């Protein structure tokens, strides 16, 4: 590309990108730069922030197996939430695009209910349902499945369940968007060629809806990595994730440098993982293309 055209292209890009970039540079990037700078400060429990330019908190975090363990748990549980949401959400998306009118509207509203309700209320709702005197345990005891109430709340399990419930809408709506634009004639064509329902699904519907699944996974994974209210209120602090540590440092200890440090590490981990998945995806596609070319 000659420099002239490159400049031309850049100019056209800039005309569009300038407004969002400038706005977000001021109202988002600048505050985050402050956080990054602040994370290199020192901290005294009484006097507060001690101005410095040292990566002490990063060293502390990265050399302490406890903190690394929390980061790893956060990643692991977020991946689990993402996978569960994708698998559990897919049939709902499928149903959503194939239903119409009021039913569809009702389902969308049902999906959005957990999203718009205060997490405190949702958490209390789960306690009411899953607690030892909750309906579920009552039912289990009445049915003779168990004699003692089972502890179903304040575990890693409830963290996954709780996040899936709150974030399901993002996954379902993303998948539904791509299923919506799917050419259903292709399904007909596949079936007329003798593919059974499930084969047609695997061969046509699933691959073509993968972009929607990808968007949904991006949203759900990012939001799981950063979620605070659900882990703190529904899973309890014994299942510690990054945001709880960050919240603790910010609000209880006022140790803003360490909180900033952990936020930066969390942000880098999330973007790093997404980038790795992106690179892996591109590499996979490149390999497929190369394989197809070699065959031809």
């Amino acid at each position, binding site marked *: 590309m000659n420099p002239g055209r490159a400049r031309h292209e850049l100019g056209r890009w800039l005309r569009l990108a300038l407004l969002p970039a400038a706005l977000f540079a001021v109202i988002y990037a600048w505050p985050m730069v402050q956080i990054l700078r602040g994370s290199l400060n020192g901290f005294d429990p009484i006097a507060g922030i001690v101005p410095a330019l040292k990566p002490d908190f990063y060293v502390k975090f990265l050399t302490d197996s406890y903190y690394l363990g929390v980061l790893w748990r956060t990643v692991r549980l977020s991946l689990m939430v993402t996978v569960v949401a994708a698998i559990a959400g897919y049939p709902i998306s499928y149903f959503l695009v194939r239903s119409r009118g009021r039913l569809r509207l009702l389902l969308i*509203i*049902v999906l959005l209910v957990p999203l718009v309700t205060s997490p405190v*209320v949702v958490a209390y*709702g789960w306690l009411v349902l899953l607690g030892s005197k909750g309906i579920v345990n009552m039912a289990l005891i009445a049915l003779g499945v168990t004699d003692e109430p089972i502890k179903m709340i304040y575990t890693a399990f409830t963290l996954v369940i709780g996040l899936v419930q709150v974030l399901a809408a993002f996954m379902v709506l993303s998948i539904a*968007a791509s299923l919506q634009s799917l050419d259903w004639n292709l399904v007909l064509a596949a079936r007329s060629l003798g593919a059974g329902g499930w084969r047609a699904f695997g061969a046509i519907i699933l691959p073509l809806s993968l972009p929607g699944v990808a968007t949904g996974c991006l949203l759900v994974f*990012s939001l799981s990595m950063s979620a605070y209210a659900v882990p703190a209120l529904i899973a309890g602090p014994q299942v510690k994730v990054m945001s709880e540590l960050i919240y603790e440092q910010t609000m209880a200890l006022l140790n*803003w440098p360490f909180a900033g440090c952990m936020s930066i590490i969390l*942000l880098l981990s999330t*973007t790093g993982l997404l980038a790795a998945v992106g690179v892996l995806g591109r590499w996979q596609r490149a390999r497929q293309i190369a394989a197809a070319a070699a065959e031809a």
Partner: protein
Amino acid sequence: MARQTSEGVAGPLGRLILHVYILGAAIFLVAPVVAITAGSLTTTQYVVFPPRGLTLEWYLRMFDRPEMLSSFALSLGIAATAATIAAVVGLVAALAMVRHPSPLNRLLWLLVVSPMMLPSVVLGFAFLQAYTHMGFGSTVAGLLAGHVVLVTPYAVALILTGLKSLDPTLELAARSLGANPGRALRRVTLPLILWSVAAGWGLAFLVSFGDAAVSVFLNTPEMVTLPVRIFDALRYSPLNPELTAISSGLVIVTLAVLVASASVVRFERLFGGRAGEPAKTPKNQEGRRA
């Protein structure tokens, strides 16, 4: 549409299983909220489920708390404004990313999407510090700016998906027919991705409307958004039916707004995707089908 004639992939048994599953999933999604809403109909002073006795007293008391109602109005205003700005920012950023391949697009994407990856307490704290330094710490502008950052990722993600699924030759066709870029955008691109823009706006609105974590740092004496009021109230005094009434009443009002807007804008078609579809669906298969 072709869909009406297609059978889907599942047989009758599969369909039955699917319906049962959907019912189960719906119950799972709303059960805790329904339990609490039902619990707040109790006549006791504390929430129990199942409720003891039934009364709407707690809901009616909501109207005796003018600060809750003014916060509700403020929340609606902030959410609508923030969602609108987010949709415009999302649209413009998505257009830049899809229409003009540039190595800087990755950076732009990171800039507008990464707020989603940070705990909101960090965002709130960072905004409080930086905005105060910039001179709009405790103003509506600050609160609004914080919400714009918070909700733009959702708008960007949805509009980007919509725009990517749009056939780019449609815009070229419009240009070749004499439309300048602006008219091509208004007459062809925008109408076709309207649904994903609307979906992005809707999600942004809901996230802003439900946020307490960022707002708690940016509130001012005159402006406390409703979720902050509820969150504070729930945290600093024991859970009582009045508060859960306000909280679930809020859900009901929010969803009523959704239903109302749905009948106006045909919400069930809200999430995009349809853009460009017919052009990619040549009906020449009809010949084969016949």
